[in-house]
């Protein structure tokens, strides 16, 4: 008996294999690159939004204090803001605090007439609040107590300008940051993130 030797063994030729491997590699590389790029993009977008929220928070903190502030001053580089706020609440150590039940309760203000008109005073003493940059963080210091109100590696920079006119006073603040995706630190990348706000002192102390 003669064995049929016509058994047809099919397979890839070397050239087919090479082409296949090459194409697969290219597709895989493209896929991986795309995935990484996507992840980076989304991460950057996520980071941008998170930092933007922190910009908003800085503005909101500042404006809340400016509105109730008696006096606002800024440093020469505009990056540090010092405010004087009324002591609305009785705190431990205050003269009224001899009655412990009064701690944490609002004061009734007193009225005084000065050469600049009537003044409403909640307490002879006041609270000092300072906003400044500390490394990658923006900190708020109230009577020595430090609170980090924003922190980012995106170089958040708030700048506040205090404008004191005859009958009014306001503070204009801008907050910028350098997003992760930028063109080699181009200035436009920072200015494009500018958030701007103005708040008026409602308790301006004249004179």
């Amino acid at each position, binding site marked *: 008996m003669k064995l049929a030797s016509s058994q047809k063994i*099919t397979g890839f030729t070397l050239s087919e294999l090479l082409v296949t491997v090459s194409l697969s590699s290219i597709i895989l590389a493209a896929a991986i690159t795309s995935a990484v790029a996507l992840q980076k993009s989304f991460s950057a977008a*996520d980071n941008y939004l998170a930092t933007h929220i922190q910009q908003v928070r800085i503005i909101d903190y500042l404006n809340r204090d400016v509105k109730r502030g008696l006096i606002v001053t800024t440093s020469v580089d505009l990056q540090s803001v010092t405010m004087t706020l009324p002591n609305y609440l009785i705190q431990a150590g205050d003269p009224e605090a001899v009655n412990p*039940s009064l701690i944490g309760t*609002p004061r009734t203000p007193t009225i005084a007439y000065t050469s600049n008109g009537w003044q409403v005073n909640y307490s002879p003493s006041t609270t000092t609040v300072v906003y400044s940059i500390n490394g990658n963080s923006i900190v708020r210091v109230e009577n020595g107590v430090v609170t980090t109100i924003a922190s980012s590696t995106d170089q958040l920079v708030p700048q506040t300008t205090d404008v004191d006119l005859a009958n009014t006073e306001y503070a204009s603040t801008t907050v910028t940051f350098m997003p992760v995706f930028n063109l080699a630190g181009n200035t436009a990348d920072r200015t494009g993130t500018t958030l701007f706000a103005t708040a008026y002192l409602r308790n301006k102390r004249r004179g």
Partner: protein
Amino acid sequence: MRVSPKTDRRANVLLCVLCTILIVSVIGGNVLLNCVTRYNTASSQVRSWKESLDAAEAGGDVAYAEIRKTILDRTHAFSGWTYSGGVYSNSPITFGRDNLSTSSKVDLFHYDSNGNPWYRIRTNGTSPVMGLRRVTMDDRMGVGTRGDSLLRKIDFNYDHFIATYGPNGDNVGKTLLPVTQPQITRRVELIAAPMTPFEAAIKANGLFYGLGSAAYIDSYRSTAGAYDPNVKNNPSDPRYVDSHSGTVEINSSVATIMGSIYGNVYTNGGTVTKNTTSISGIIDNNVPFTLPPFYMPDTSLWTYVANPSAVTGNTTINPPAAGTAGSPNYYLMTSFATNGSLTVNAYTSNGTVQETYVAVHVTGDVGSSSGQGATITIADHVHLQLYFDGNFGAKAQNIINNSGFAGNLQIYGISPTDPSVQQTIALNSGGGSTAGFDATFYAPSANFTVNGGPDFVGAIVCKAFYSNGNVHWHYDRQLDNIGDAVDYRIVSYVEDTR
């Protein structure tokens, strides 16, 4: 047997590519969705936080409007509010597309030296928080450091303020109060201060004519020393800063201004320039204002004294008590003779003269613009507030204020209920006298006329102003906090950030 494996092993490259793209897209979409969702939640919470302050301030406006009514429309002030324990409260008001709500409490916490009440407004505003019940991006602040939730205190399940500090923030009545949906509430405290009427030397709501070509208006501050006519021309004098506040405010575009004004001039659409007259201060021709009618103040806290009940001939008031600014000795008089003379003496206790507060309400005319007119004499230490419903006529030299302080003789013209009735105030200097007097006039519905050239210390608020004499008019800056409240303004703003 022939085995035919017939295996067609072709790689489906297209399928692999599609699967890869699908997986990458799912990853990317998920990241994007997560990112946007958290951003939207954060944005929603920021919006709610800001809107809750808007709501609180709207509540403050509502309360402020009621406080103004205590002067401008007393019968309707705090109508619909509840009053308990000295505090007015209103029911929550819901408004706006985002269902904001606000409620306020108002209490009278202080009487000033004029007897005018000061009000405290405590108001809160609430805004619902849409979206997920969760804090947002404050995990970005680092381990153990809170961000947004430290600033924006969101009540997800319970009202944290009432639970921690009580409904009034005074540690009383703390309770767990569930909220129907997440919300942010912000609380502000405002102080409404009375506005007194004498902020300028002359304030006219209508036409203005005057003064004489050789007249002048200047100012001084009585607490810094007696009036000295040389101070206004001597910048080195420490009192100089108070000598250029003889301001004239005219709510009209029609004004004839003569003489020298050591102060500012404001008109409503006028064309006053430095060239038209001698004005030391600024000129602003775009300063409109409103002068509401003046009504008799609330007398419920005043001490009524029955006699005298009219000024006929020479009438003297000897008050039975010193009284206070908030509760003066109150005389209601039906008439004041055309040539009548009213003398008010101070109250003496144990031989010591007391600061004595007297209010007189004349329900008709006071004196007359012709003839002798009224004579009014107040002793030192007397604080007289004279209200009249009709017209006022007197000679300048017959207004005798022995205290020397214009704020101690305040004369108020009650606005006529009939708008067709024109109220008048006429001051004449008899026989060319330059005798002076110290007084203030507040009569927003009266046409004011002063003839001759008296030496006048005080302030006048009127409808139309006419003066043809060479008056020497000295505004006392100390008058800017003297007198009855004619309106209210917000002078203090504090947010309870707890």
